[in-house]
């Protein structure tokens, strides 16, 4: 397994290089010229040229790409072009709220959806199963924005159960006061698609011959579900979760925006709006690295779940 991990880590290098190249080309093609934002209301050619020189945009494309390579190698992306603060400190300040918000949403949603999915899969074809499927389909057809707007209006404003918005410096206060409503709405948004997906994973496993054999052997239903079906059904579930984990970093844009949570989602949008390439570069590269790491972890977890899986 060690050799496999080393091989996969080495494979990450050309992948990252490809991501860098793609990002660099895309930004230079459609990213916009930040000097026109920084120059303010009135500008002249000299000012624009000075700004471009200070940002390093007057260098050749090759030289700019080399700087990018160096930044990735050192994971030091310099300073933000829009507010001149170190990119590392900007991201460090924002990653906590994002991971807290999306982490809790993912945790609650995963636990609930797997539990509910296994139950409705067990009673597949029943009225309960059909009702859950119908509710999930209906819920999925409603935009996330509607849940957020309606939830904030009714649960926070009209009923007063939660604050309308906010975020503090204390983790405990955030957890108790500010997180519950956005997490609740995030879970509502993600529960239906997760539940449907996981249900189909469980149903597919339950239709396999080994389940019938287990029943024929006289194993109890809980044992069949938990020991046999769950283990096999977890492979696509793990894949889905592992694929989602890197995006915890990106946060949940709409929730962050509506609840004034200082997360990454808002930073990403601001960076794109202001053509803030250092911030865009940093976030993209971190997401790419995390995606590759979690892909690798998923493969290792497959092996732990199912020893038949061979890592080659």
């Amino acid at each position, binding site marked *: 397994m060690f050799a496999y991990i080393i091989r996969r880590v080495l494979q990450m290098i050309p992948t990252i290089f490809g991501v860098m190249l793609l990002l660099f080309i895309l930004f230079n093609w459609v990213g*916009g*010229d*930040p000097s*026109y*934002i*920084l*120059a*303010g*209301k*009135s*500008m*002249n050619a*000299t*000012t624009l040229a*000075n*700004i471009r*020189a*200070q940002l390093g945009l007057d260098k050749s494309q090759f030289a700019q790409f080399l700087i990018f390579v160096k930044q990735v190698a050192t994971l030091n992306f310099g300073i*933000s072009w*829009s*507010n*001149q*603060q170190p990119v590392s400190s*900007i991201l460090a*300040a*924002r990653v906590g709220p994002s991971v807290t918000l999306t982490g809790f949403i993912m945790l609650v949603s995963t636990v609930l959806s797997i539990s509910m999915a296994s139950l409705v899969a067990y009673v597949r074809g029943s009225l309960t199963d059909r009702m859950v499927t119908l509710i999930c389909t209906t819920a999925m057809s409603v935009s996330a924005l509607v849940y957020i*707007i309606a939830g*904030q*209006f009714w649960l*926070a*404003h009209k009923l*007063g159960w939660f*604050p*309308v*918005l*906010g*975020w503090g410096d204390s983790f405990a206060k955030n957890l108790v006061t500010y997180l519950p409503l956005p997490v609740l709405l995030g879970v509502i948004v993600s529960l239906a698609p997760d539940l449907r997906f996981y249900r189909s994973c469980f149903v597919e496993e339950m239709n396999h011959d080994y389940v019938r054999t287990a029943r024929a052997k006289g194993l109890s239903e809980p044992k069949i579900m938990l020991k046999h079906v769950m283990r096999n059904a977890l492979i696509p579930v793990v894949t889905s979760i592992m694929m989602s984990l890197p995006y915890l970093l990106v946060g949940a844009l709409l929730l962050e*925006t*509506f*609840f*004034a949570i*200082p997360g990454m989602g*808002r*930073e990403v949008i*601001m960076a794109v*709006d*202001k*053509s803030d390439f250092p911030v865009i570069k940093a976030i993209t590269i971190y997401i790419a690295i995390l995606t590759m790491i979690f892909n690798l972890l998923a493969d290792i977890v497959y092996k732990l779940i199912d020893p038949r899986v061979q890592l080659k």
Partner: protein
Amino acid sequence: MRKGQFALAALTAILISGNGFAADMNKVLHVAFNAPETGFDPAKISDQYSSSIVENIFDPLITYDYLARPVKLIPNTTEAMPTISKDGKVYTFHLKHGIYFADDPAFGGKKRELVAEDYAYSIKRLLDPTINSPYSFLVNGRFVGGDELVAKAGKNTLDYNAPLEGIKTLDKYTLQLTLKETNFNMTYILSMPVFGAVAREVIEANAANTMAHPVGTGPYLLKEWKPGTKMVLEANPNYRKDVFNFAPSKDAIDAGIIKAMKGKTLPCIGRVEVSIIEEEQPTWLAFLEKQLDISGIPQPALQEALVIDPKDPTKATLNPKYAKMGIQHQRYKLQEVTYTYFNMDDSVVGGDSKEKLALRRAIAMAFPRSETIAAIRRGQAVPVNYMIPEGVGGHNPNFKGAAEYDPAKANALLDKFGYKKGADGWRVQPNGKPLSIEYATGSAAIDKQWNEYWQKAFDSLKIHVTWKVGKWNELDKEARQSKLQMWGLAWGADYPDGDNFMMLLYGKNAGDVNYANFKNAEYDKLFESSLKLPDGPERNKLYDQMNKIVVAQQPWIFGDTRVRNTLAQPYVKGFKIHPIVNTTWRYIDLQK
């Protein structure tokens, strides 16, 4: 614990400085911006949000009377208003003694007094080529010897120690500015937050990150900054004694303000917490839930918050259900104009020929401005009829410069000047070439609303319109490179004087703020003459003539001026919106 710390800090400050620190650190004002700030170096910022913080930390030489309307300049850190030479070229300021900067490690543990050299340094920073100040246009070419000093610096840092005739100190407390040309607006310009005094040693000690280290002599200091998220200001313990002693204006609310605030030492509020809330619903709900103390009324909430007169939507009062709660409502017209420009260098919509003028006029006549004011602005805007908006020196309320909405006449005009309809029913140019106009636009929902009305206007004229959709900075770049045909913009007053607006069509500003690339010798001559005159009837005559040229040549389609509605909670005392000063936190109190 925290209260104790605050009290100790305040007491210490009073004992040490003998100043008038009276802010109650338990009073916390909660407000929100709807877009992120960029930083707090006065020389480097241009956005309203950063400026709103900067104006509370730094002190310009002169400022505005809080209550006076029309707005009136008053001394800030100076003993009196500056003496101005008869030719309007030499401005001399005498600083008050005993004004101190907020404490900073750069001062080596000593109290640092504000001196004339601080202003000289701060103004020179706007000239510095390495700073690329967004407001450099206010100082470039302005001061005697300034251009030479900038040229000598090249791409390097300005030599701040070199003598500069145009910006010099006569003694420790006297600053003298000498202009190359007569200009009577310099006091307005110098009252802008970007002209607040910075301390050279603080700037040099934090050269790598001046945006995050604002240290000034103003009523507040920056206690905490989470970029794009939160800013916390705390009362500056070193702030000089400043007592609320404004005379009331004719505004009815002034009597109540005077009653609540007269004689109080400013600032009263110890802490200001500023959040960034970009969405409109949470802003509105947060205000209703008292999570915000002062807030604008977001566009979607206007119908609920206000009772709008259907016959005259500009007349609006607060919904009685909110009025009963004691919520305070204030409204005023922004000092801005919105307009859509034609690129006068463009081969289709630009040029001086009669048929090009007819095309521009027809498009202006086909745009249903009253409909957009009703539907998009929800009545909270008034039509623009003059390049200078109401409340700004030089405005003429009797001038009706906007083209009258009349699609039938517009079509007749096009018919007359050879824009015939082709076999497909759409018009072609007089030379027989296809006629299609590209309109630049953003991609937000609000842009799409505007585009529907533009589509309607062009359809009514049987002119093809296409959309050039882009991010603001990309469109701005193309506009300045003269690559756009039409684009809608807004210009807000940097200072309340007409020249800040009339410069938008000055020929030498083409490729810069003159997006229309309008070059008219007569207009330029009149503009240059107007710069030599103070605000008054003589200059107004010139402005009228310039507006007539604009109406005749139609480089712009006049848009509207928005009306801002602002609410404050009942316990906010002394609150009054100022048309120029972004925030009035230092003048208000909280009595919960």
